[in-house]
């Protein structure tokens, strides 16, 4: 049975309990999706939307890598190239990674805490349906005179103000995305705090739920800060204020401070749920309990706290007092401690475990190795004198792509391969999924590892042309990019063919492994209302 029709079985299930007044299946046709309040339907829409945006943002990445395939300007004009880097980032961050995690939260949090649904289902519907409007507006900027925003996703003034009509569209789209994220985060916290099954104390919650609880607090604290920053940009542009304009007594660097006060926690918003996912998958396929559960929770909370006091490491080169540089350098390095605790615990969970290497585990292991590379290059960038050399080079591009692609994106893919059989009731083709894993892992390294060398050799980021000394590594990186992009078509094929049909998955799904959590106690696919009677947690 597929996601689209699995609820057809539900009225039959509901028949067991005819007298219950609120047992009902989904609406028919478009009403089911447009008026959706069911957490699974909304989760599915978030995940499909995110997949679509992943390909839209990915196409923009292909334009960038095609232009950079060899030195010289060949395919697009420089302004359009800058629009591509800006839009690629905005779409991947706000349209692909964040909605994918919200989709996973929608699907899994009620199932993992034993709740019938999310606490605020109508707000849930609203927070999803804002997104297609926000991204239509953002993508619409490609069609207006003057072109799409091209000043980078960081929107630093005065550069970001030097565009045409796309500017207010960008600001409005960012506000809409922010409103959607805040509503999603409120829903997650309210659900976790009020809807847990009896007996499920906070320190009995699955790690994915913990990671999302902390992420949701980060979202509520920082998305309004981004909204405040872009509101001030808007009033500077149209209403004569001078928040960021030196000529009027304002300070352009203040924008950078405010932006990165949002921006650094944002990085953790995109990685903490992946930590939660990996903490679910590694114990299952190691056939052991997670090593150091409590310390994992405290580590996530510590990382979240530290993420608020490191923002200025993104702007060491603006000129700040030595004491400021030292503070932000040392605070940044401190993040390695809780992150190290997590990597240690994942490794210790596998130690002497009975490991098996199904696709979710392969992606989790790849995450472990490659995210750690991204973490180490982050430590290099934290060192102030070194950062003066690396700043605005391809080394930074390599660093954050290692964190976000084999980090966040592989975390999402691991989650999809882990829970897709539960969602659809079908097992996917293992061979194809493993092929997808190997292609992705090989090409992601071919794509991003050479960018470290380019950055160390001095190639600046966000340029469409470069010195011939950078030609070889750029060509290799572009080949990796095309390979990685094409490999993801296989991912889409696997997902859609599993939704359409396939071998029936059992309720336990990973029968041979040691699954943990309430989600495995319901049928595959789960009933329309997940837990009508709350389960007892011992």
């Amino acid at each position: 049975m597929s996601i689209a029709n699995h609820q057809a079985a539900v009225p039959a299930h509901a028949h067991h309990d005819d007298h219950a007044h609120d047992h009902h299946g989904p609406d028919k046709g478009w009403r089911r999706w447009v008026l959706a309040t069911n957490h699974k339907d909304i989760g599915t829409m978030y995940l499909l939307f995110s997949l679509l945006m992943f390909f839209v943002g990915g196409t923009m990445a292909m334009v960038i890598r095609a232009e950079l395939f060899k030195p010289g300007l060949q395919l697009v004009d420089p302004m359009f190239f800058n629009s591509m880097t800006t839009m690629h980032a905005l779409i991947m961050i706000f349209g692909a990674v964040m909605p994918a995690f919200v989709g996973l939260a929608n699907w899994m949090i009620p199932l993992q805490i034993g709740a019938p649904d999310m606490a605020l289902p109508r707000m849930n519907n609203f927070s999803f349906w804002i997104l297609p409007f926000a991204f239509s507006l953002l993508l619409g900027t490609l069609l207006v005179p003057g072109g799409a925003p091209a000043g980078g996703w960081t929107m630093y003034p005065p550069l970001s103000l030097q565009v045409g009509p796309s500017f207010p569209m960008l600001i409005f789209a960012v506000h809409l995305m922010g409103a959607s994220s805040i509503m999603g985060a409120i829903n997650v916290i309210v659900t976790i705090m009020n809807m847990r099954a009896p007996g499920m104390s906070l320190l009995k919650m699955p790690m994915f739920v913990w990671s999302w609880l902390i992420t949701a607090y980060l979202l509520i604290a920082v998305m309004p800060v981004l909204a405040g920053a872009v509101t001030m940009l808007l009033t500077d542009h149209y209403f004569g204020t001078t928040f960021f304009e030196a000529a009027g007594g304002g300070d352009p660097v203040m924008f950078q401070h405010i932006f990165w006060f949002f921006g650094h926690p944002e990085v953790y918003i995109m990685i903490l749920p992946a930590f939660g996912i990996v903490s679910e998958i590694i114990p299952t396929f190691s056939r052991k309990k997670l090593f150091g559960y409590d310390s994992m929770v405290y580590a996530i909370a510590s990382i979240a706290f530290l993420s608020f006091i490191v923002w200025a490491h993104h702007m060491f080169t603006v000129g700040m007092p030595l004491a400021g540089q030292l503070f932000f350098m040392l605070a940044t390095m401190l993040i390695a401690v809780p992150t190290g605790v997590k990597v240690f615990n994942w490794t210790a969970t596998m130690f002497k475990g009975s490991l098996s290497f199904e696709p979710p585990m392969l992606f989790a292991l790849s995450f472990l190795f490659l995210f750690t590379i991204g973490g180490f290059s982050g430590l290099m960038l934290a060192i102030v004198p070194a950062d003066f050399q690396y700043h605005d080079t391809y080394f930074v591009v390599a660093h954050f792509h290692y964190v976000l692609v084999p980090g966040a994106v592989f975390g999402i893919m691991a989650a999809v391969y882990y829970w897709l059989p539960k969602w659809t009731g079908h097992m996917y083709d293992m061979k194809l999924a493993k092929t997808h894993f190997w292609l992705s892992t090989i090409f992601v390294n071919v794509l991003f590892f050479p960018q470290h060398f380019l950055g160390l050799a001095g190639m600046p980021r966000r340029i469409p042309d470069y010195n011939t000394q950078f030609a070889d590594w750029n060509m290799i990186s572009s080949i990796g990019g095309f390979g990685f992009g094409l490999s993801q078509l296989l991912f889409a094929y696997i997902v859609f063919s599993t939704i359409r049909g396939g071998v029936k998955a059992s309720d336990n799904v990973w029968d041979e492994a040691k699954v943990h959590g309430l989600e495995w106690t319901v049928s595959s696919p789960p009933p329309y209302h997940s837990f009508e009677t709350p389960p007892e947690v011992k």
Partner: protein
Amino acid sequence: MTSGHDRRRGVRRTALWLALLAAVFYFGFIAMGVWRSLH
């Protein structure tokens, strides 16, 4: 176990506090910008 009524009240109360927190961050940062551009 909490009753349905308590739960509904808890949901409403948590949601309102969180919305207030978000509003404080939004207006607080704009107020900081105003304060900074006046001094």
